[in-house]
């Protein structure tokens, strides 16, 4: 089995499909031409750069370079958590919570996957570390962003009920227990949905990639099963951790509700 190397003519043929978008936008006056062009150029530049950087990392095999790339990925994921907040959570606090959570979860889940499940040799090879870390971060960041958003919005809405419990002598975690579990539940919906629907509606990207690259479908399925378990575990850990951080953000050491820390929009 050999994979088919793609040449620039193939890429150009694919890019011509974008013309459909352009024609539709023009015909129906959607005014999206500019956005389509920018998004397409960004996508090409980002994926091209990623492919190039990964090629260097794989060839060099230097742990320092791998670590640097992993750190950049974690920082970018934290940034994504912060920009997805709508409930008025302060930008830098959510950036810190997102980055800290994803750092911890990303490292633990990646190490566990590589050393205990897949047993890659050598486990620190960039070829294994970076794609797996990327998948974990992508899923966990969705969970973290949802958890923080939901928690902040629920607590703002349920302010009187939560303060009533605080006034009666409840600790911050007791007073927020309902909001806390609701936020974690919301944060886990995407990963649970994708676990239930996978293989029926669509083949997951990693499995598709493996099959296109010539792997046995049953082998690809086994890998995908492992990845789904890892992703759900990592998301659950990230959701719980970020919810706990969120409670600390919304209260102080005297267990007082501190909604004054939110940006008022």
């Amino acid at each position, binding site marked *: 089995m050999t994979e088919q190397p793609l040449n620039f003519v193939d890429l150009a043929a694919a890019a011509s499909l974008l013309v459909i978008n352009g024609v539709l936008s023009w015909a129906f006056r959607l005014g999206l031409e500019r956005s389509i062009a920018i998004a397409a150029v960004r996508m090409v530049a980002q994926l091209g750069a990623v492919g190039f950087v990964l090629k260097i990392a794989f060839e060099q095999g230097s742990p320092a370079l791998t670590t640097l790339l992993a750190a950049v990925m974690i920082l970018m994921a934290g940034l994504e958590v912060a920009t997805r907040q709508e409930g008025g959570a302060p930008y830098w606090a959510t950036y810190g919570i997102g980055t800290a959570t994803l750092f911890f979860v990303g490292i633990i889940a990646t190490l566990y996957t590589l050393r205990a499940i897949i047993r890659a040799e050598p486990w620190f090879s960039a070829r294994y570390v970076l794609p797996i870390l990327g998948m974990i971060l992508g899923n966990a960041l969705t969970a973290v962003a949802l958890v923080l958003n939901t928690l902040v919005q629920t607590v703002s809405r*349920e*302010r*009187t*009920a*939560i*303060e*009533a*419990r*605080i*006034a*009666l*002598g*409840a*600790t911050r975690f007791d007073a927020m227990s*309902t909001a806390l579990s609701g936020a974690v539940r919301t944060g886990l919906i995407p990963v649970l949905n994708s676990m239930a629907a996978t293989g029926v509606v669509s083949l997951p990207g990693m499995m598709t990639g493996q099959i296109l690259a010539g792997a046995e479908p049953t082998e690809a399925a086994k890998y995908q099963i492992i990845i789904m378990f890892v992703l759900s575990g990592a998301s659950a850990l990230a959701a719980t951790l970020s919810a706990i951080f969120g409670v600390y953000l919304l209260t*102080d*050491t*005297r*267990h*007082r*509700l501190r909604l004054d820390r939110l940006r008022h929009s």
Partner: protein
Amino acid sequence: MLKVEKLKVGGLPPLSFEVARGECLAVEGPSGSGKTRLLRAIADLDEAPGYVSLDGAERRELPGPAWRKLVRYLSAEPGWWAAMAGDHFARGNEEANARLLRLMTSLGLEPALLDRPVSELSTGQRTRLALIRGLMDEPRVILLDEPTGALDREAAALVAELIRFQLLAERIVVLVSHNPAEIERLAHQRLLLGATGARDAMEAAGRELQR
């Protein structure tokens, strides 16, 4: 003894006063003069520089929840975290059940109210249930924010009777009220807050304390 020293609440000048066991301090003043903020600061629900101590123990010496177990703030607009009224009370042990029934009877509430959703109760019923909820674990200081504001005359009299009973049981009461008759009947001392002349009122209250 509840002792407040140089407590800074919002834009008010620093407040100092003492309330002994079994005594009631009435806090008066126009809307927006900081009455609610003062009660919240005493219960340590908002940040406020200065000192608040109960029987010699400053609030910061205790964890926040432990302080609020002793010093109970009862909001004029109580919050409810469960759908059913009864789920806001720690029931199950005989003593708590008996106490709950006794308090409900004393405020003219049917025990069957506990099995109804909070949303179906009237404002007056909710106000009284919230008061009972706050007294169930017998706090030492009770900070009442307009406890009778939403009640009819009959229910208000029952609440006033309950407050008097709490004072007899050596509890300390700080009462915010717009009802002069109620203040007249319950208060041992008064504190007047106002947008203007607040300092004078404070000094007057301070002199009254020293007498």
